[in-house]
């Protein structure tokens, strides 16, 4: 069975400090993993994806994530938060590498950025 656990429902950081959003997954297959972002009243946007290539994945807006199979983790990081990063972030697992089939979403982490 496949599942995703986002370890924090809310994260608050000051502008200019690092961001860490934590995600653990469970998958019977070699998974594809994604991070999506949702700004208020906007649709979901793909930040980055892992599909069994390089384990360190770089995404848009300075975000990156590292796939750690031994820890079954796919944490999202950014060295320096910006006010515009305030949004909800979803970690997503898909059990098959080359097709999207039943994307399984975590419950989301709301990121607040304080000036």
């Amino acid at each position: 069975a496949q599942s995703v656990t986002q370890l924090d429902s809310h994260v608050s950081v000051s502008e200019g400090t690092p961001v860490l959003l934590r995600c653990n997954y469970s998958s019977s297959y070699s998974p594809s993993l994604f991070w999506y972002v949702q700004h208020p009243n906007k649709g979901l946007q793909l930040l980055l994806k892992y599909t069994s290539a390089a384990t360190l994945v770089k995404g848009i807006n300075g975000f990156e994530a590292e796939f750690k199979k031994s820890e079954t983790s796919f944490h999202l990081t950014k060295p320096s938060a910006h006010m515009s990063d305030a949004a909800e972030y979803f970690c997503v697992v898909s059990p098959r590498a080359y097709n999207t089939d039943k994307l399984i979403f975590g419950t989301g982490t709301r990121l607040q950025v304080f000036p």
Partner: protein
Amino acid sequence: DVKVTQSSRYLVKRTGEKVFLECVQDMDHENMFWYRQDPGLGLRLIYFSYDVKMKEKGDIPEGYSVSREKKERFSLILESASTNQTSMYLCASSRGPEAFFGQGTRLTVV
């Protein structure tokens, strides 16, 4: 750019009404999905379709049905709307390992 368009941003319906939510994509994608999004629960899959006239139940199909008569269009049907179906509904389409989402329809059932 891939575009996934949901026909309404906001809908208000009465309990017991039959409700249709429409979704159209313009990139010839095989896969299409309907999710509902509720605070603290993330996105939960209602139904998905991997080809015209093909559909599979997701995790929460009860009270919903779907229709896919053409490749570009995937409709979600609430047979008899209930207040616990008040939610944000998101449609998505994909071919490879990336899904593209519509803006969402916020449905309120009163």
